[in-house]
């Protein structure tokens, strides 16, 4: 047996012993996930036990260094852990923007003090983070953002407005892009971290076509932020932001995964023309799953093109929209009920509507194609 085989059998046994049965059912929506944070109320004992067990091994962030609350696993071990969790249908113990977005940026750009302080909290699910990027006047043109942070000697004074802040109303802290200089568009942006309970911060949920409110408008009115809560250098926040966007895109691209095969198998009788479309989709979905594995390995090994998350995000989100279109088609009129018990409170149509945002949030598909054309294909004038 190789070391990896031993790791696999040990992991399998540990998961069997420690993953509660209730945590081996699929997440029906984002609302089923464990998000953690100061105000988190566990939905069940099992959810709490599962988080505690995984935190104990550092496996909420298996590939982060042990010093920062991670499991210190290699790329191969991380993959094996993922495979073993998938094998028993284990839910992620913790879903968080701290893990998928801020953490990687802190690992790269944070000071040692910041890493020690923030990463451990993220790994243990103690602080729930939100992302303050887009503004009413800065969507696809993100670098045009206007939220201002003035240097007041012992603190930054932040004024302005963010929009599409995911779960800002539930988050404990925000990582936020602010303008610290008007002299340069991209070169006048800084990356701040601050507590959402700081006086002057307020939020207002936005109701979406899906009927849910995962996003907020967020307002800053004379918010005082301590000087050491900046990541990277002043006016160099765009580098942090771009790096983090890569991870956000990687995360969103993951939504295109899974489902290969299950859609057709669960719908009977299946119209032959619909079956053909589902089969065409499954080919694309399984091929994309192979790409995701390859991309993860390349990313980890530093062999991936820095702009490749844009490609993954584009392909994954377009695939997820297509899957939802097919789920609606396969469901027929059953898939139209909005809040019935039988229709699981409209899970299918709500997911379908929510998926339309996938190719908008984190940079639209059109922006991703621009990035691929410019940075990977090096086409002229792109």
């Amino acid at each position, binding site marked *: 047996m190789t070391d990896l085989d031993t790791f696999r059998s040990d992991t399998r046994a540990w998961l069997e012993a420690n993953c509660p049965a209730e945590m081996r059912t699929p997440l029906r929506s984002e609302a089923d996930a464990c998000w953690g944070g100061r105000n988190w109320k566990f939905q069940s004992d099992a959810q709490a036990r599962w988080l505690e067990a995984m935190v104990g091994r550092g496996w909420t962030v298996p590939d982060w260094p042990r010093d920062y609350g991670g499991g210190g696993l290699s790329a191969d071990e991380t993959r094996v852990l993922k495979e073993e969790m998938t094998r028993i249908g284990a839910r992620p113990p913790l879903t968080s923007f701290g893990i998928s977005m801020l953490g990687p940026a802190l690992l790269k750009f944070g000071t040692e003090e910041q890493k020690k302080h923030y990463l451990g909290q993220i790994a243990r699910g103690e602080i729930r983070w939100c992302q303050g990027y887009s503004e009413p006047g800065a969507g696809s043109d993100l670098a045009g953002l206007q939220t201002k942070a003035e240097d007041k000697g012992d603190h930054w004074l932040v004024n302005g407005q963010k929009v599409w802040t995911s779960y800002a109303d539930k988050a404990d802290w925000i990582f936020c892009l602010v303008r610290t200089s008007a002299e340069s568009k991209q070169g006048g942006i800084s990356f701040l971290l601050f507590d959402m309970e700081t006086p002057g911060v307020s939020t207002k949920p936005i109701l979406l076509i899906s009927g849910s409110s995962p996003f907020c408008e967020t307002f800053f009115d004379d918010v005082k932020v301590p000087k050491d809560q900046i990541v990277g250098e002043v006016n160099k926040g765009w580098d942090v932001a771009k790096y983090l966007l890569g991870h956000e895109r990687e995360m969103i691209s993951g939504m295109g995964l899974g489902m290969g095969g299950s859609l057709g*198998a669960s719908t009977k009788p299946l119209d032959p023309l619909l079956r053909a479309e589902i*089969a065409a989709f499954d*080919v694309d979905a399984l*091929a994309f799953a192979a790409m995701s594995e390859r991309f993860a390995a390349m990313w980890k090994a530093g062999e991936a093109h820095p702009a490749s998350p844009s490609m993954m995000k*584009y392909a994954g989100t377009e695939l997820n929209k297509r899957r939802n279109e097919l789920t609606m088609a396969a469901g027929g009129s059953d898939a139209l009920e909005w809040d019935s018990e039988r229709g699981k409170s409209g899970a299918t149509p709500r997911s379908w509507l929510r998926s339309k945002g996938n190719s908008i949030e984190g940079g639209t598909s059109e922006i991703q*194609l*621009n990035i691929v*054309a410019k940075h990977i294909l*090096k086409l*002229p004038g792109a």
Partner: protein
Amino acid sequence: MSLLSDDQKMLQETAASFLAEEGSIAKQLRHWRDIACKDGFGHGLWKQFAELGLTGICIPESHGGLGLGASEAALVLEEIGRNLTPSPFLTTAVAATRAIEGTAHADRWFPGILSGDAVLALAVDEGPRQAPEGTALDAKRQGNGFVLNGAKQFVVQGGSADMIVAAARTSGSPGERDGITLFAVPRNAVGLAVDSQAQVDSSKAARLTFSNVELDADAVIGEVDGGWAPLSRALDAGGAGAAAELVGVASGASAMTLDYLRQRKQFGKLIGEFQALQHRAAHLHSEIEIARAAAFKAAQLLDSGNDDAALFVSVAKAKAADVANLAVREGVQMHGGIGMTDEHDIGLYMKREAVLGELFGDVYFHRNRVAELSGY
């Protein structure tokens, strides 16, 4: 692990420089096409494949081969696809080699394959689409052997082959997997008519007519009535290989097209500056990367004997054919008028894609197989 090992990277580099230099469109495809060569490929190049050890890539070390697998074959095939190199590599060194491995026929044919002297072909299709279960070529016992009657088509390089691996029915009915037997048929067998025809891409494929072709019992490859296992092995290896070659075709067409976007001017601008074309090129790039990942995963699963290998062979073949088809259509369209000329190479990619797309099962065959293997 989805990244290449150091040995695989070295093999890839060797294959890439060899095929770019010796297997180029000008030296091989156009040359043999323009002199109307009967084989559609050059035996000299096949010898060079052998000198590099490539003809024995899937042949076990115990037989003198490299003892590698589908993953390494895929690396070579991607370069073959990129250069549109005509050669018997896929049919002989991959598919037919898999069909006869572990049988007495391996001892008979592996030395010739290793030296680059032997060419083998695979005769499966009996209609215009692949349907291996539908094998109807009749093989009846007669004395100590068999007598074959029926027909095959799309036997790639059948006219050049020294030996043809033919799937025939020894029992049961068309539609059943049991009752199929593989035979090693010499091309010059009495009663075998070989009608070799140029395909749209200038490669050669034959229609075979079997009229009382008598074969000894030792012509059977593997077990009588048990041909499905070696046949599936050959078809899966062929399918995964064709997927890799299609990824190469797509990459080659795409690279040529991107070059054109960077140099062709209209309206006083490079046409690559137009966003309408940039987005299509970026979409195509993303699709090719996905197809490459799928093709490599299929090969890796075949090599590790994974239960999902058949599923992923079909995913890879369907995806790669789809994507290569997109690449050649976009290629010709973005080249404009010059893309319609025989003088320009982009059209040759379109022709090759058509043949490879069909070989070892088309997109619809493999989508259907994905659905069946997924339980719907």
